[in-house]
């Protein structure tokens, strides 16, 4: 027996009603169109390749077989494992080398350079990011090719010529070149917030510059270092242009392998989809690790 009668609904005055209506309709008007766009052209397509990745050997125009994990098992075949390994080593190499090269630069600009020049120096350093990544990789072809600028210089001073183009060293150089500005940009943001008094206090208490660096500066900027490394790692893991232009045929990476499954000679959409899903998974794991450990470091500091 329903004892609780609903309280009498007060007749909402028109303006109140309009207010309630607009509170509901405004966010919908603002957020539905962009959300719908992302849903249609990002989420739905990603779910679609998730489905394709579960259909072994799916090819356009052929009748599809049943579901299975064949595409994912194919990745672990002996011919494809080196590709995954190579992509990972390029990404780790690019991250490590741009950290080593970028930290002193960010440190000098953020801590040692005259304060009024800092912004200008930073902007000048990251300016090359505004130019086409394709052309920046192309510039290194002109430098590294057998009859290129580097070998002309080496020849002029009597050193043996180096054959770097179309080999892994060229990819490492090209990736470090491409991603160094990102590294410096994020490290700078983190180093700029570093409390300089801590460095002075450490020096006053008798620490050597090395001790101050490793015990104060590095721990203080750890969240920034982690974020910068993550950004460079995920960008270089999915990079297509640099390995393709500078690495040559022997430097097949995951991106190129995926490309070939759709626009190249192989045209195995199922396998290509499973590779894409693995790439997305790899990037997500990297981000999850950052959120988990990056945050903990951040909390320790405060």
């Amino acid at each position, binding site marked *: 027996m329903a004892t609780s009668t609903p309280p009498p609904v007060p007749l909402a005055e028109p303006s109140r009603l309009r207010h309630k209506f607009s509170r509901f309709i405004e*966010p919908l*008007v603002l*957020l539905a169109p962009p*959300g719908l766009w992302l849903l249609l052209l990002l989420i739905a397509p990603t779910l679609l390749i998730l489905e394709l990745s579960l259909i072994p050997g799916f090819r356009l125009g052929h009748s599809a077989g049943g579901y299975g994990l064949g595409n994912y098992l194919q990745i672990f075949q002996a011919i494809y494992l080196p590709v995954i390994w190579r992509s990972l080593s390029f990404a780790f190499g690019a991250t490590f080398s741009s950290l080593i090269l970028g930290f002193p630069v960010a440190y000098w600009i953020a801590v040692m350079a005259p304060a009024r020049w800092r912004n200008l120096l930073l902007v000048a350093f990251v300016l*090359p990011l505004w130019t086409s990544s394709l052309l920046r990789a192309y510039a290194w072809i002109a430098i590294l090719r057998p009859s290129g600028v580097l070998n002309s210089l080496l020849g002029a001073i009597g050193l043996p010529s180096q054959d770097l183009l179309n080999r892994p060293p060229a990819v490492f150089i090209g990736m470090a070149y491409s991603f160094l500005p990102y590294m410096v940009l994020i490290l700078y943001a983190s180093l700029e917030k570093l409390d300089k008094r801590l460095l002075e206090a450490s020096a006053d208490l008798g620490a050597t510059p090395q001790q101050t660096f490793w015990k104060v500066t590095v721990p203080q900027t750890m969240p920034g270092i982690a974020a910068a490394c993550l950004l460079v790692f995920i960008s270089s893991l999915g990079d*297509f242009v640099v390995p393709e232009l500078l690495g040559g045929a022997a430097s097949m990476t995951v991106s190129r392998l995926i490309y070939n499954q759709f626009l190249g000679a192989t045209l195995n959409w199922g396998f290509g*989809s499973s590779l894409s899903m693995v790439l997305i998974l790899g*990037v997500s794991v990297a981000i999850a690790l950052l959120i988990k450990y990056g945050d903990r470091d951040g909390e320790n500091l405060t």
Partner: protein
Amino acid sequence: MSETAPKRNISWQFLFTLLMFAFMYVPILILAIYSFNESRFSASWTGFSLKWYASLLQDTRLLSSLWDTLFVGFFAVSISAVLGTMMAVGLFKYKFPGKSLYRGISYLPLIIPDIAIAVATLVFLVSVGLSRSIWTIVAAHIVFCLAYIAVVISTRLSSLNPFLEEAALDLGATPTQAFIKVLLPELMPAILSGCLLAFVLSMDDLLISSFTAGEGANTLPMEIFSRVRTGVKPDINALSVVLILFSGVLAFTAEHLRYQSDRKKLS
């Protein structure tokens, strides 16, 4: 004692930074220098010439790909400016169930590798039976352009005085008036610099364009890519110089906008 001693010696960090500046700029300089070189093949200097710049102007294929790139960039960025602003403002102003999911999805285009987005979009277009054209490139570019623009605007929103709009409403402005007269002018620098960033990214995109381009649509990165795979081309050097100058102007404009809005914020 030591802290008062004047630091006359040049630190190794300074020298290293100088070296890295050279690392960033020397390749671009080399491109620029060789764009004036007369010789087609060798790295040695055979004489000053502007012929590669002249040949650019007669290269109809290159010019039409430049047109396609500007077309895609213009429409993708214009539509994204509206959608991205709506998204950033909506996420800033309202609380609703599923908001963090929505926000998470809005970051996805910045995180997922281009190749995965490109492949997924191709599969989607084929499966819904949409024929590919230049407009499918525009549609695909909007996905990442709107995400970048929204991020830039969100950063600006979070540093904004939240009472400005309320004050306008209290003074009798309608929500639309408050938005157009108060919030939008405050956001304009962020919207513009977001648009410039998105435009540069759209001009730079190779993979997503390659996978979504239809018959006859050919963007500049696609054209450059197909040419430089087969070696060094002096006319591409000349093109690089033109594009670098162009993006330099865009970068300068964006920095100027940011500088202006920072100064306004301080005063």
